[in-house]
C-alpha cells in the first residue's frame, strides 16, 4: 500500500488543488464576468495574458516565479518587509504558482459560460427589479452553472497534474511541497516502478473520473435553451 511519504504527497496535492481551485473560482469569476461583458478594446490584452500559461513551458513560469518570490525578488522582499518570509520553497508559494498556472483553465470556461448566458436574461431580471448584484447572483451564476463545474474540475485536475512549476519553486520538501507528480518522478528516478505505478495509475483513474463527471453533468444541465 501507500507509504507514509506517499500519503503525505497525496494530501499536499489535494490540499494544493483544492485551495487553488477555490481561490481561482473567487478571483476568476469577476474576471471572467468582466471579460464576457466588457466592450473595452484592451480586453484582448487581458485575454492573451490569461491564456499565457496554456502555451508557456511551465519551467518559464516557474523560473520567473522563483525570481519574484525568492528572498531577493520583489514579492519576496515585500513579504520579508512585512515580517513574513520569502514564498519560494513554501506551500504558500506553490499556491501562488498554481493559481497562475491554472488560471486559463478556470477563467476560459467561466467566460464562455457567461457569454452564452448573454445579456437578455440579465435585462429581463433588471426589468423585474433585480439590482446588478442580485441579477448576477440569481440569474447569471445559476445559468452559468455548467461553466462553473467545468472550471472547477479543470482547475483542480490541472493543478493536480502540475510538475514543472512545482519543481522550480517548490522543490520537494516532504509534507510541505512534495506533491504526487514530484513523488512519481522521484520513484522512477530511484527505479521504484511499483510505487510509481501505484501513484501514476491512481492519478490516471482520478483524472478520468473527474472528466467523466464534468461531461456527464454538462449533458444534464444544458446551457440556455435555444
Amino acid at each position: 500500500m501507500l507509504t507514509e511519504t506517499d500519503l503525505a504527497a497525496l494530501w499536499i496535492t489535494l490540499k494544493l488543488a483544492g485551495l487553488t481551485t477555490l481561490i481561482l473560482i473567487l478571483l476568476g469569476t469577476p474576471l471572467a464576468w468582466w471579460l464576457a461583458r466588457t466592450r473595452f478594446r484592451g480586453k484582448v490584452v487581458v485575454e492573451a495574458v490569461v491564456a499565457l500559461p496554456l502555451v508557456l513551458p511551465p519551467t518559464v513560469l516557474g523560473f520567473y516565479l522563483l525570481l519574484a518570490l525568492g528572498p531577493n525578488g520583489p514579492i519576496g522582499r515585500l513579504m520579508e518587509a512585512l515580517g513574513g518570509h520569502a514564498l519560494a520553497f513554501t506551500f504558500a508559494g506553490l499556491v501562488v504558482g498554481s493559481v497562475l498556472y491554472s488560471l486559463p483553465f478556470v477563467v476560459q470556461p467561466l467566460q464562455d459560460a457567461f457569454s452564452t448566458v448573454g445579456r437578455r436574461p440579465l435585462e429581463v431580471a433588471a426589468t423585474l427589479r433585480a439590482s446588478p448584484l442580485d441579477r448576477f447572483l440569481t440569474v447569471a451564476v445559476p445559468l452559468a452553472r455548467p461553466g462553473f463545474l467545468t472550471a472547477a474540475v479543470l482547475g483542480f485536475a490541472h493543478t493536480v497534474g502540475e510538475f514543472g512549476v512545482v519543481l522550480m519553486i517548490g522543490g520537494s520538501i516532504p509534507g510541505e511541497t512534495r506533491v504526487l507528480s514530484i513523488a512519481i518522478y522521484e520513484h522512477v528516478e530511484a527505479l521504484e516502478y511499483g510505487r510509481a505505478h501505484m501513484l501514476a495509475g491512481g492519478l490516471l483513474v482520478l483524472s478520468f473520473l473527474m472528466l467523466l463527471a464534468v461531461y456527464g453533468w454538462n449533458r444534464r444541465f444544458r446551457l440556455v435553451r435555444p
Partner: protein
Amino acid sequence: MTIDARLRIDRGAFSLDAELSVPDRGVTAIFGPSGSGKTTLLRAIAGLERGPDGFLKVGQEVWQDAGTFVPPHQRPLGYVFQEASLFSHLSVKANLEYGYKRVTPSARRVEMEHAVALLGVDPLLSRDTEDLSGGERQRVAISRALLTSPALLLLDEPLTGLDLESKAEIVPYLERLHEELEIPVLYVSHSPDEVARLADHLVLLQQGRVLASGEIRQMLTRSDLPLFHGDEAEAILEATVVGHDEAYELTQLEFPGGRFNVTRRDLEIGQVVRLRILARDVSLTLEHQIDTSILNIFPVTVEELADEGPAQVMVRLSAGGAPILSRITRRSADSLQLTPGKRVYAQIKTVALLA
C-alpha cells in the same frame, strides 16, 4: 397625466430621435416598419439603452433628464420581450415570483391569484419552462411582468414569432388586460391587425423619428399619414350593443352615426365593442337605397378627398362625428360630384367585430 419622452440613441448607421407625449392610460401602439426604431424606443424608455441628454417623465416621476438616470431595476415598469425570455433555471412558478418578491409588499397592487387568473397560467405553474408552447411562454412572461405591479407596461411585439393559433390564444388575454387593469401599456407592433384590436393611441415611427401620434381613430383616417392609403386602409368605430334580432339572428350595435346590424354574436346589451371597416368595403350613393341587400347604410358627410393612384380616390367621411374611409374610383367620385361638405350615404358591405 402623460408620459413625456425625448430620447436619442445613436448607433452609427441607425439613430433614434424620438419625441412623444402619450396619455398614461390605455394602450398606446408604437407602430412602424421594421428598422424604424420601435424596439430601441421601448428599450430607451425602460432604461436598457441610454443616450445623451434624454428626457423621460412618467406621470409625476422623472425617470431621465440632464442629471437623472433611474436605472432599469428602479423603474416601476413591466417589460415583455419579443421572445418570452423565461428564466430556464427556474420553474414557471419561480419565474412568476421573481419580480413579485422584489417589490415591497406595500407597493404590490397585482396579486398572484389575479395575475395567474388573468392570463390563465394556473395550469402551467407546475410545468417546466422548457415544455411550454410559444403562446404559453408569452402568457407567463406577461403575468411575470404584471406581478411587479408596474406603473407602465411595455410590450415588445409579444405576438411576433407565434403561430396563428397561439396569437388567437393570447389576444383575448391582452384585451382583458386592457379592460381590467388600469396600467398604461406601450405596445410595439408592426401588425395593423393587432393595432386595430388593441390600441387606443398610436405613435407612428419612421426611421427613428416620430411621424405622428394621436388617438387611434383619428390617426387611421388622417390623409397625411401612410395608414390612410393602400389596400388595408381602415377605420375603427366604437359601438354599443343595443339589442339582438331573434328572428334574423342579428346583433344591433349603435354608434353616433347610426345603428349597425351584424351577424348575431353572444354579447351583452350595453357592452362596448370595436368595429373595423376597411375603406374598400364602403361604397357611396347619393340617395338612400332601399332595394339593396346591404344592411348597414348611414348618412354621412364628405370631409376630404385624396387621390389614391391614377384611378382611385380615398374619401374621409363623417358619420355623426365618427370618421369612416371609403375607397372608390375617381370616375365614381366625379359622377357623384363629391366635394367636402356634401351629404351622401355610405353602404358598408362588411364590418369586422373586434371583440
